[in-house]
């Protein structure tokens, strides 16, 4: 372990980067950095990584299973040669200067030898202690020796000293010892001591996430008095199929199925008595919980959802909110409950003011979910002291410049990402994580060593098969049920098998060496391991094969533990028979396996940024800072994009022109080629090798970044915009505010929100930034002597400090009228707009307002070039017309096409900090991609047998990645699959009517050989 080498001092490992916190943000940052070649120390306080996201059931708006999309990243981080995972550890000191920090880390003892633990869990089964499991938000139990969850990464058990009987007196006194006895690997050792590690790090990333506020102090909501009142996180665990109730929605008080639910928003958030900020994610996650709850428990008939402003601001969120309303039947009530008490028949009574009548009302429900504020994670002040950085008064780590730099802390070389600097959803957190990665990377200089991937050893596919079979006991885990010896003996008699044996632990280090020797000695040319699951262990065994000079694709696994001994423990004979079958199938597949070679393609280590707005500029800067070549292309004659239309910026009040000037100066100080007044006309090629045609030149580039922004279109035909001169847009008004002129005493400026956004037709989503803009403008207008009114549907000031702005505007006297969702404002006048008519949903009556100026907040729409570029680059567009990201949660910066990235408003509307974070984040991705002069293409792709192809085009329709391409030459039409684009899913192969397509490594032959042998008499 390199960390240990650091303590002894020699040889000094390269300066690394310290990442604190192993949630999705920390993991993302670590992976980006590791791939870019930096040494990463990822320190996590708890026994396993995954953080909050690992606790979630589903992610919205797609209702993707959270752990399904997260765990591949966790495993990747665990196995990455550049990443040292230090779990159950804490940073205790940080000294030195940026670029040359010395960090001290305390690695707490698990009392389990990390190297030996195989994660079988026998110990936990015998532990006599039972305490609430933090991971289950207190709803499930665990022993004193435990893993937080079944899919824990790393899967190593931990003894929690606080609760272990042997430490009852504080120090070790042998009392129990049951776990140590039960452990098949003798991995438990009560005398293992804490370890102090010293690390040389160039920079630090803080990704410590958030905690959920305990709502107990809010007495009127009665949390803690009644079992059927849960917090949002507790409810999330209940919904999780792997959670304490197995996904069943029940009343904790008696285990019965609830028929009605109340959801209460903003518990402790947007409340100056507790936390004045908006927690940013609750509105929609509760909608998701309603949808999932209904799915898991159709008996629930009523969902009473109490909210203040529905902040469904992300991509697809507005539509998701409507889905909750229309499909699940959630009853959205704009009101904050006054109290929750015990009602009749064991129900809970929620009292509130009915917004429809403005009268007190109440409803009795079975279960209440309080969506509590996200607060800075426990230990933030201590960690801040250790790191020498500041915290905000709301408890989160402080950003030095929240507007111009969304990741820099108050200490140089220390960066913040994810919820460490304030509440955030998953895509914003991972974008920031990458951004922090890009910044941190700039401090390691040349101390980078990207993981080299040389060519794989190749074997002659025609050689007579000599299969080696290794059957694992996994201690007692397999052998306790399955007769591993008998399986190995059975395997030895199979055709083609040259060697078969059984091992106690096939995955242990010494067995790897043994396997390596046997492969060489016995001249094996195929290997089968019958053990646990290939999902976690295939990479390890493949590595062993490669080391032994065997092509790693000549390896197969039979899963006789997770999918056999563990699930058939009551029928050992059948389990043994099944294991034999699985081994036989694997051996026959192995016989048909072909060696595959990674294809290495040279790449052009340069990037091309499309769009010279603030995102494009920032992205180009951060790429150039890594020493890579960058070209920036802007279609207008000047740089700046949307920012050129802005005057003063929230929250700092800085002039937009100053920010822009500073960024352009920085851009110009770097070797970046800027082409203004240019657009791309054609693109060809693939990752690492794009050829881009401009008007007057051709460029080669390894990566393309779409930073093409958006455009605020004129609201033609809306609300008197065509008729009246004094009906203007936000950007027009921004110009009015450009000077310092006062307004006439009492001049009335009326802002109308969502003009052309959140509509049934056309742009259905929320434009995300307009509420903030109108609040800022209204406040400024009031300061300069005017009166201001904002007519809105919900005020969505969800951003960092956005809620403060909303409060300042209210306190300064800005009036707010919440209109109906489906009723427009009536703008009347003669030559000029004079009066406005609107139904005020708070007063429950029509109101009439006189106005001097009407400001229409219009949404940002995709820029004109989006559709054309999308077609040219084959990047799909969302239903909103913006470019579609690779994954709505975990891939906000990538597109479906490798080597093409996106940032800023090209993806969807965003404010400056979010755009900048994305821009820097993309730079990290590009840095990782271009860290080596080549890329290796996945070898298990599909190819077309030309003689059989009839060019029907079925595969072309199927493939999401546009890998198959119709081609033509003298002999006629045919399809060719571009290996660089193919991801190897094999769907095309199963659809090809002439079986012309072969899915390598999952060929028909290979699949069929498994079927055939299974039924062979």
């Amino acid at each position: 372990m390199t960390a240990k080498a650091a303590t002894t001092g020699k040889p000094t490992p390269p300066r690394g980067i310290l990442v604190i916190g192993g949630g999705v943000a920390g993991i993302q940052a670590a992976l980006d950095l590791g791939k870019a070649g930096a040494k990463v120390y990822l320190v996590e306080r708890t026994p396993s990584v995954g953080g909050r996201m690992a606790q979630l059931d589903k992610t919205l708006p797609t209702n993707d299973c959270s752990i399904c999309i997260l765990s591949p990243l966790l495993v990747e981080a665990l196995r990455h040669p550049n990443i040292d995972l230090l779990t159950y550890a804490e940073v205790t000191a940080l000294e030195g200067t940026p670029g040359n920090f010395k960090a001290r880390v305390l690695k707490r003892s698990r009392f389990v030898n990390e190297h030996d633990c195989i994660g079988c869990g026998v110990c936990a089964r015998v532990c006599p202690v039972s305490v609430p499991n933090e991971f289950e938000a207190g709803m499930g139990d665990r022993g004193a020796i435990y893993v937080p969850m079944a899919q824990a990464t790393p899967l190593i058990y931990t003894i929690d000293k606080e609760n272990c009987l042997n430490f009852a007196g504080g120090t070790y006194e042998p009392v129990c010892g049951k776990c140590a006895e039960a452990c098949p690997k003798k991995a438990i050792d009560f005398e293992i001591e804490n370890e102090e590690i010293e690390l040389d790090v160039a920079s630090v990333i803080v990704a410590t996430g958030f905690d959920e506020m305990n709502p107990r102090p809010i007495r009127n909501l009665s949390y803690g008095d009644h079992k059927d009142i849960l917090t949002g996180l507790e409810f999330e665990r209940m919904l999780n199929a792997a959670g304490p109730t197995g996904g069943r929605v029940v009343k904790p008080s008696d285990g019965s199925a609830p028929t009605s639910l109340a959801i209460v928003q903003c518990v402790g958030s947007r409340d100056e008595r507790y936390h004045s900020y908006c927690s940013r994610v609750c509105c929609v996650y509760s909608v998701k919980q309603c949808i999932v709850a209904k799915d898991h428990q159709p008996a629930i008939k009523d969902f009473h959802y109490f909210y203040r402003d529905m902040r469904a601001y992300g991509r697809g969120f507005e539509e998701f909110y409507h889905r909750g309303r229309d499909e699940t039947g959630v009853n959205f009530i704009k009101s904050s409950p006054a109290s929750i008490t015990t009602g009749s028949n064991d129900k809970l009574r929620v009292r509130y003011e009915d917004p429809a009548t403005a009268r007190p009302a109440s409803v009795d429900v079975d279960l209440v979910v309080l969506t509590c504020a996200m607060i800075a994670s426990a230990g933030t002040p201590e960690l801040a002291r250790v790191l020498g950085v500041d915290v905000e008064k709301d408890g989160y780590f402080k950003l030095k410049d929240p507007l111009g730099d969304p990741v820099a802390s108050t200490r140089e070389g220390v960066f913040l990402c994810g919820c460490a600097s304030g509440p955030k959803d998953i895509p914003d957190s991972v974008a920031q994580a990458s951004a922090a990665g890009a910044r941190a990377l700039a401090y390691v200089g040349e101390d980078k060593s990207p993981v080299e991937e040389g060519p794989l050893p190749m074997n002659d596919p025609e050689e007579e098969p000599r299969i080696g079979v290794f059957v694992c006991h996994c201690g007692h885990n397999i052998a306790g049920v399955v007769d591993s010896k008998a399986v190995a003996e059975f395997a030895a008699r199979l055709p083609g098998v040259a060697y078969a044996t059984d091992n106690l632990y096939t995955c242990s280090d010494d067995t790897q060496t043994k396997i390596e020797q046997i492969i060489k000695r016995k001249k094996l040319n195929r290997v089968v391991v019958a053990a646990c699951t290939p999902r976690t262990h295939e990479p390890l065994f493949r590595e062993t094969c490669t080391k032994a000079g065997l092509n790693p694709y000549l390896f197969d696994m039979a899963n006789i533990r997770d999918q056999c001994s563990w699930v058939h423990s009551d029928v050992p004979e059948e389990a043994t028979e099944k294991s034999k079958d699985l081994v036989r199938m694997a051996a026959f597949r192995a016989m048909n396996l072909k060696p595959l070679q990674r294809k290495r393609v040279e790449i052009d280590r340069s990037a091309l940024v499309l769009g010279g707005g603030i995102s494009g500029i920032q992205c180009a800067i951060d790429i150039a800072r890594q020493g890579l070549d960058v070209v920036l292309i802007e279609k207008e004659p000047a740089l700046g994009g949307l920012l050129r239309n802005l005057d003063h910026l929230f929250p700092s009040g800085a002039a937009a022109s100053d920010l822009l000037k500073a960024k352009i100066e920085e851009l110009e100080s770097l070797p970046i080629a800027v082409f203004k007044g240019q657009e791309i006309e054609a693109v060809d090629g693939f990752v690492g090798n794009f050829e881009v045609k401009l008007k007057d030149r051709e460029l080669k580039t390894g990566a393309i970044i779409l930073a093409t922004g958006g455009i605020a279109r004129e609201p033609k035909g809306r609300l008197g915009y065509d008729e009246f001169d004094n009906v203007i847009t936000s950007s027009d008004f921004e110009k009015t505010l450009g000077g310092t002129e006062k307004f006439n005493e009492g001049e009335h400026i009326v802002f109308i929100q969502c003009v052309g956004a959140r509509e049934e037709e056309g742009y259905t989503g929320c434009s995300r930034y307009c509420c903030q803009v109108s609040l800022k403008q209204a406040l400024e207008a009031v300061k300069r002597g005017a009166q201001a009114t904002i007519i809105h549907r919900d005020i969505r000031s969800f951003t960092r400090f956005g809620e403060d702005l909303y409060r300042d505007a209210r306190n300064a006297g800005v009036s707010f009228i919440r209109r109906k969702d489906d009723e427009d404002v009536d703008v009347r006048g003669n030559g000029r707009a004079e009066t406005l008519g609107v139904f005020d949903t708070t007063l429950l009556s029509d109101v009439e307002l006189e106005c001097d100026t009407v400001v229409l907040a219009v949404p940002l729409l995709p820029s004109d070039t989006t559709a054309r570029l999308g077609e040219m680059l084959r990047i799909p567009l969302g239903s909103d017309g913006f470019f579609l990201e690779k994954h709505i949660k975990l891939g906000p910066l990538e597109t479906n096409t490798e080597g093409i990235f996106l940032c800023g408003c090209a993806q969807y509307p965003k404010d400056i900090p979010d755009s900048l974070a994305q821009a820097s984040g993309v730079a990290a991705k590009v840095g990782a991609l271009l860290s080596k002069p080549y890329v290796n293409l996945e070898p298990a792709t599909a190819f077309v047998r030309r003689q059989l192809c009839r060019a029907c085009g079925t595969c072309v329709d199927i493939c999401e990645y546009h890998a198959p391409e119709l081609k033509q030459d003298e002999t006629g039409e045919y399809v060719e699959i571009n290996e660089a684009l193919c991801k190897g899913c094999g769907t095309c192969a199963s659809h090809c009517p002439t079986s012309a397509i072969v899915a390598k490594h999952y060929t028909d032959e290979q699949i069929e050989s498994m079927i055939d042998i299974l039924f062979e008499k």
Partner: protein
Amino acid sequence: MADFEPRIVAFACNWCSYAGADLAGVSRLQYPPNIRTIRVMCSGRVSPGHIIRAFEHGADGVFVSGCHINDCHYGFGNRWAEKQIEKTLKLVEMLGIEPDRLKLEWISASEGEKFATSIRTFVERIKELGRSPLQR
């Protein structure tokens, strides 16, 4: 036939369903040992040919599982799988095999329980149906 033990071929996509099956194991959920699973990268890889071959060689049932709709690791492989299965069902019927012997199920990586129950139910159903008509 009280002691009839059906032989079932299961296909599971690597990203969700295979992981769900693993989770069933980690959670020690018990289900009948009648299935033999073939891992594929995506449920879209399973072709009518594979399914029919399994029946012809002796399978009493074929179980195909993939990620939930919209969760497919490759976008829409599972939607294509769904269509393939519909098509295959027709072929299966033409061969005189009861359609219940072919089952498609969406199982996520967190649905260990669902994997176990689905297998339990499927095995039970096949037991009711008895040996495959092609094997009688």
